[in-house]
């Protein structure tokens, strides 16, 4: 298809093509569906497709464009992480537990895209209940990294990540509880943003750790992320933690020059554990920012190392509580054979959850159980405050914080799957912002050589102060005006599944 170039377009570019009638939404959508047919059997980024529903939305978008009432994303095909309920669509959260669940209503994020006239291309693969950093815990199988098929795309938003990187969608949604947008964005080489906690409604988004979960855009560029944020963000009374703030235009500051910007570099983000090759790419990116007029400030986030232990108390504790709803009574998997109610619960949950989800439920149950609450849960909440205070101090000295988004490039499938602690360390640079509730981004910053394969993408992380998304998008956008890493797409081999 001649759409190799088309699939590489920007959201603004698609909108211009659509509104000037050079292409219809139906044609654009069919072009992406064609690419999905060609590459998805191998990559496994999508786990639910419904051509009739998708094309019906595209036709409706064309009617809206013809009527002259198009919004910026009207007619543009978007991939939705399978954590979002979308009415009439299978919504599985990557789990056998929900393998037969068809959502009876729309998540707030989905209804926002529908109202904008965007087209839902399909539901994307993910780690089961968003618990994982490689997409390998999905009941529906792993996802291939489009840059190197023997490697993982990262996780938990691995399907959305591979779909964006392989140009199997115009843009995608993800969610980030401990790094699930930023780490896959780094490993697959695109732009991803986790907003400030409370900016995007969690209504209809299947819960993992409710005090940390936040949805955000996964797209080619900062400008695309800004356009996605304009649709996704906003107050929703159905989410009790949704923040009642005035609507923002996230594109408003994109063009601002960066002269005088103060960039904080936390020494803890460049210490032991960071691959030397990744560190070099990050240094090169910082050098580029200096050329743009930014000033570098050396800072410290002394409690960074504690973010992983704290997270692996708080997230499993919240998960064990959230996932207690899956009992085989009203929806979800029920065991085929059982004796009494207790047996039905225990068998249904043993069969419906995968190994990593069970581990986290057990850890969460343990740290919340009688006698251990103070030593684990309360202690973790106290250290969470120390971690958040580190950032308050840091932002007195700088405007944004930069560092790597992940400690290494994409690793090989199977490499860490049997070692949960090694897998957890993938999120060492991302988790602290979730704990603090701060916004974070990953921006393509170059490629690092690998010992036994092609060079692989590296993401620069940008952390902003609360509600500073527009400034972070500006900081990323200006970098993308002088670099072309975000425009590079992998040459997809015609590999079979």
């Amino acid at each position: 298809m001649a759409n190799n170039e088309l699939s590489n377009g920007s959201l603004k570019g698609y909108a211009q093509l659509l509104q000037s009638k050079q292409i219809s939404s139906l044609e654009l959508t069919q072009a992406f569906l064609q690419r999905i047919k060609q590459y998805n059997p191998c990559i496994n980024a999508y786990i639910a497709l419904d051509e009739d529903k998708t094309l019906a939305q595209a036709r409706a978008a064309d009617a809206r464009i013809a009527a002259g009432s198009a919004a910026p994303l009207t007619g543009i095909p978007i991939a939705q992480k399978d954590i979002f309920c979308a009415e009439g669509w299978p919504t599985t959260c990557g789990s056998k537990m929900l393998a037969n669940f068809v959502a009876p209503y729309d998540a707030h994020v989905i209804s926002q895209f529908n109202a904008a006239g965007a087209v839902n291309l399909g539901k994307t693969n993910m780690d089961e209940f968003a618990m994982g950093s490689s997409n390998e815990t999905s009941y529906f199988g792993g996802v291939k990294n489009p840059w190197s098929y023997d490697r993982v795309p990262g996780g938990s938003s691995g399907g959305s990540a591979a779909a964006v990187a392989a140009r199997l969608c115009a843009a995608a949604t993800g969610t980030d509880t401990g790094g699930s947008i930023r780490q896959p964005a780094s490993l697959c080489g695109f732009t991803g943003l986790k907003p400030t906690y409370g900016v995007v409604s969690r209504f209809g988004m299947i819960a993992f750790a409710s005090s940390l979960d936040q949805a955000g855009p996964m797209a080619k560029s900062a400008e695309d992320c800004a356009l996605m944020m304009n649709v996704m963000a906003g107050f929703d009374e159905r989410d009790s933690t949704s923040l009642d703030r005035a609507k923002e235009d996230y594109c408003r500051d994109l063009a601002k020059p960066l002269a005088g910007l103060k960039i904080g570099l936390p020494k803890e983000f460049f210490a032991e554990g960071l691959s030397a090759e990744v560190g070099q790419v990050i240094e090169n990116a910082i050098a580029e920012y200096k050329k743009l007029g930014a000033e570098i400030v050396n800072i410290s986030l002394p409690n960074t190392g504690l973010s992983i232990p704290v997270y692996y108390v708080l997230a499993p504790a919240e998960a064990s509580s959230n996932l207690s709803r899956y009992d085989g009574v009203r929806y979800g998997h029920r065991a085929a054979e059982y004796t009494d109610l207790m047996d039905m619960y225990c068998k249904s949950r043993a069969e419906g959850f995968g190994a990593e989800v069970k581990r986290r439920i057990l850890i969460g149950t343990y740290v919340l159980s009688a006698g251990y609450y103070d030593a684990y849960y309360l202690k973790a909440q106290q250290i969470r405050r120390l971690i958040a205070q580190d950032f308050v101090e840091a932002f007195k000295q700088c405007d944004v914080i930069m560092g790597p988004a992940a400690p290494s490039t994409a690793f090989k499938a199977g490499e860490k799957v049997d070692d949960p602690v090694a897998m957890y360390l993938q999120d060492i640079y991302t988790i602290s912002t979730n704990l603090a509730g701060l916004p974070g981004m990953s921006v393509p910053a170059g490629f690092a050589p690998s010992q036994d394969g092609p060079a692989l993408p590296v993401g620069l992380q940008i952390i902003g102060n609360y509600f500073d998304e527009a400034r972070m998008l500006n900081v990323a956008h200006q970098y993308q005006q002088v670099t072309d890493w975000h425009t590079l797409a992998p040459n997809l081999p015609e590999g079979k599944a």
Partner: protein
Amino acid sequence: MALSIEDIKKVAHLARIEINENDANATLNKLSGILALIEQMQAVDTSGIVPMSHAQDLSQRLRDDVVSKTNLRDEFQKNAPILGNGSQELAVAGGLYLVPKVIE
């Protein structure tokens, strides 16, 4: 603190997850590794620090006590699980969900 196989079985019961002897042993191994990671917290002096339970200091929003949702029972019941124990029917009857008898 070292975990025992009895701890695993007790926690699995509390979490309502059936676990056999083999799985319990494998789980003990993995969970011990994760708990060792968590133990790093104990080196930190946290006396006097107010626990942070949430990313934002929010107070609960209140709303007027008015009907805000429509009844979607029929829609929701389409997602009912298969009854099991030999039946392939959905575990629903007369708008209710079917579970094993709990009161003698």
